[in-house]
């Protein structure tokens, strides 16, 4: 017998969870990036590196 709950979860929840995980990763990466930019002085290597 078809498990309709599973079908609905696969079709909807997995995508939603993926977006959520990516959004959480975005927030964490953004916060860590911000902390690093504010607290750590750029090294000579960083200064010499090209943008992008």
């Amino acid at each position, binding site marked *: 017998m078809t498990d309709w709950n599973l079908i609905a979860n696969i079709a909807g929840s997995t995508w939603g969870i993926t977006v959520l995980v990516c959004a*959480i990763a*975005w927030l964490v990466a953004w916060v860590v990036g911000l902390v690093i930019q504010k607290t750590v002085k750029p090294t000579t290597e960083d200064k010499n590196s090209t943008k*992008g």
Partner: protein
Amino acid sequence: MFGLYESAFGALTWGNILMLLIGGLLIYLGIAKKMEPILLVPIGFGIIAVNLPLGGLMVFTAEGIPAEVSTFTGAVKAIGSGDLGVMNILYTYGIESEVIPLLIFLGIGTLTDFTPTIARPLSMVFGGTAQLGISIAFLIAFFSGMFTINEAVCVGIIGGSDGPPTVYTTAALAPQLLGPIVLIAYSYMALVPILQPPIIKLLTTKKERAIYMKPQVRKVSRLELTFFPIIIFIVAALLVPKSVPLIGMFMFGNLLRVSGVTERLAHAAGGVFLDVLTFLLGLTVGVLMPAEVFLKPQTLAIVGLAIVAFAFSTAGGIWGAKIVNLFLKEKINPMIGAAGVSAIPMSARVVQKLGQEANPRNFLLMHAMGPNMAGAIATSVHAGIFLGMLLPSISG
């Protein structure tokens, strides 16, 4: 007549002949048209090899693909007696065990530059929304009645446009479809420059495509580059534990690249090591396609469903960017969301080209590379969620 005891002509079927033509076509496309040659040439050769009867390179039985041998001597004897082909061993211990796709992802990690994603972490969200096609293709595949749940998931994952997660998921959930799914996934990735532009144009206005973004992204320090793979790995591992093998290998490879002290390892993993694994993958996938396995209505259905998956993933990325734009003061060009369909770097190049067509001042490549890289992470997360749902749970 030509062989000492037997010739293969008597065993050749029309299906074999058709597959020989398909194998030849793939080799032609790889060599003459330079379409994913690193994969299509070995796949094409593998198809030809397995469709020449009586060769015994890969043995199929009614139960599937035999390979389990207890000792090395047992394997040699089984190959010698024709019970097993050499490629059976490679398939079982390389692909079915997931070793080759994971090591390929490690190599790809060493070649991946996350700078654009780190410079604009919001790109991560577009990588996520651009997985929409996976769900849509899954639903259509399942309701078509041609696929089981596991098979429909593997058809859907083509929409992630990322090779290793596709191979990994399919080998785990529907190994019987590995050949057609991998072949179709890689073929469509090569066709992204043809498939995506009409979809992007359909879903965006010229005014939206012309939205200007400053060409340069901010500077990213080595420390940020080093922290990024570790952070992403920890976040993904805590939230979606089954994604650990994929994300772990991908991020470990990237850490080797950016740490600044493991260049030799990064060179090794991303160089000849990656090349060897890639042709082994291609050849093994090729020999999974004898006529009786490949020439089925399911294969044609996968061809159609893969287009649906690509189209909706592209749409998901664009819609994600449009929604985010509602909250931003400085609007982003919604086309960069379409690059969340990973297909690195083709979809980012498509966005760059369309951006310049709409506004010659626009240079969107670096902005599009952010979602492009994030798409690879998101597909691995999505694959991990599927495996968590559909595989029996294991501890540790």
